[in-house]
């Protein structure tokens, strides 16, 4: 186990810059998730930590060692790939013990470590099988087994659940989290799925366009996103954004005036973006009238697409709503949960 420190890490392919100076301190034993949309550079960053991509600029330390120019094998890391990358011509046991065998470990030690990992991951009965004889979830477990068998300082996961179906993804998510809690090895996990990020991470790093947008605990990012990008990326369904102007009476948006917290009043006169999460609307006769566009009953809650003034927004309600498209209901935004962002750069204002 070790700290991982990224200082002004940069990556360029010729003239094209993909990572623009990332600073990140990952503490020993921490589970950090790199999240962002496709092409944001999260996998590149992980591959640079693994040593599979060269580092153009900056400094990368694992523990006390600077590892910029070390081969992957000398960084004491283990990686789980999106496609699992199991060796098809080797059994589960050989796959898991391969790195130890290559490093000259004794056969008894290899068998011991493989059996230990197989025991943790429930693979004991599958050790003699080949990867082609396993289901997706089992392959995923073998890939994790291959990583933990060597007891590395850092685990790297590159979108390991994206090839699984939705149900299995939830199960494996829990297993990876449980494994981390058991082993307490520093883990860096890449995903584009913000639900994975929220549920698994000690801290989330949101990336966009090769830059860090925000670093923080999942609920900090959810409750106080630093900018409009993070606000829109974290949370599902995503936050509603309404353009308008802050006035003494509230937030004047096209066709409607929305309530604002008292703390926002000093910003009066400023153009801004009003952000409100779908679950922060409530049904209230004294609220603002909205026109229903679509009702999607989910069982435990109801998701309603509605026209708030002239802006299409989404609301999620605990109540069951039987309205039809075109009907009017009254909703009240929770003013304490309103986020205001500057119109030009999307920076948080309140």
């Amino acid at each position: 186990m070790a700290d991982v420190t990224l200082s002004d890490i940069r990556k360029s392919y010729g003239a094209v810059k993909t990572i623009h100076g990332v600073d990140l301190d990952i503490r020993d034993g921490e589970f950090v998730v790199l999240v962002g949309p496709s092409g944001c550079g999260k996998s590149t960053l992980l591959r640079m930590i693994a040593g599979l991509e060269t580092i153009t600029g900056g400094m990368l330390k694992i523990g006390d060692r600077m590892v910029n120019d070390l081969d992957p094998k000398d960084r004491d890391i283990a990686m789980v790939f999106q496609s699992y990358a199991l060796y098809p011509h080797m059994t589960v046991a050989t796959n898991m013990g391969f790195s130890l065998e290559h490093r000259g470990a004794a056969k008894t030690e290899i068998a011991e470590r493989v059996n230990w990992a197989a025991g943790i991951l429930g693979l004991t009965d599958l050790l003699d099988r080949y990867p082609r004889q396993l289901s997706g979830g089992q392959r995923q477990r073998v890939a994790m087994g291959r990583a933990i068998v060597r007891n590395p300082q850092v685990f790297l996961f590159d979108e390991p659940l994206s090839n699984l179906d939705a149900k299995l993804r939830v199960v494996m998510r829990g297993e990876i989290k449980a494994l981390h809690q058991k082993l307490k090895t520093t883990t860096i996990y890449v995903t584009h799925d913000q639900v994975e990020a929220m549920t698994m991470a000690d801290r989330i790093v949101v990336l966009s366009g090769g830059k860090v947008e925000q670093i923080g605990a999942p609920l900090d990012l959810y409750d106080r996103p630093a900018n409009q990008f993070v606000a829109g990326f974290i949370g599902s369904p995503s936050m509603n954004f309404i353009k308008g102007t802050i006035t003494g009476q509230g937030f004047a948006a096209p066709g409607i005036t929305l309530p604002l917290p008292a703390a926002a009043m000093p910003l009066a006169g400023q153009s801004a973006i009003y952000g409100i999460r779908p679950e922060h609307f409530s049904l209230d006769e004294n609220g603002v009238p909205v026109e229903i566009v679509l009702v999607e009953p989910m069982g435990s809650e109801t998701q309603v697409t509605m026209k708030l003034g002239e802006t299409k927004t989404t609301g999620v309600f605990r109540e069951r709503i039987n309205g039809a498209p075109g009907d009017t209901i009254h909703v009240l935004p929770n003013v304490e949960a309103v986020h205001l962002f500057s119109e030009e750069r999307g920076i948080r204002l309140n």
Partner: protein
Amino acid sequence: MRADISPRAKVGLYGLMCVLLIPFVFPTWWMVTSSIKPISDIFAFPPQLVPQNYDWTTYSKVFELQPFVRQYWNSAYIAAVVTVGTMIISSMAGYAFARIRFPYANAVFMIVLLGLLIPSEVTIVPLFQMFLKAGMVNTHWPLILVPIFGAPSVFATFVMRQFFVTLPAELEEAARVDGLGRFKIFTKIALPLAKPALASVAIFTFLHSWNLFLEPIVFLSSADMFTLPQALTQYTDAYGGPMWNIQLAAATLTALPVLIVFIIAQKQFVEGLAHTGLKG
């Protein structure tokens, strides 16, 4: 779709396939049956598709008239050495072209492929002069070295490259993280997975070497150095006319191992070629 074919159409289809089969099967049938006919029956009219008289002595004469066992051995060991050599060279070259980034890799590969376009008839004279200077004429070295470094190996390199290109890059990256260097990745990961492609390379290289005719007649001059295709031309009577039934008996014996190899390995052969996107 095949299940939709009516029984009548099926009969027609199979009938057509049987007719198309004739040009492929008939020469082999004629070779095998003629090898046990007296020579006069080979030219009988109407032709005898099924032998009416048998002459089994043709097979013993094959061994009496030529050092046939020795020639069999020559063909076999040359083909084996060429096959192993080509597998080594082509797998390493194919891997390098597919996986190692180096300047002008594609241009170099194109230049290598151009070797396939030059007919062996064009290069045979300069090659003869080269091997003559090296003192290798009437030895088996030219028959071993030319295919290993020439066109058959280029084709094999192409087949291997096409296979290695399809190998997921993540497998190699996983191996790098596991601590393997480039050569170990090649021997421990890439090569074991390339078995189907290697099998097809082995089969067609073996066939090519076994059937080689032009090079042996140019480079070899003594009967005990001959390979089988060359030896077949030596079964002639005192006037230089072919002794057809003996020649065909020798041809049958020559074709036998090839047929056996192909029957045993045809699955790998087809699979290997399927990997390259080529048709067999």
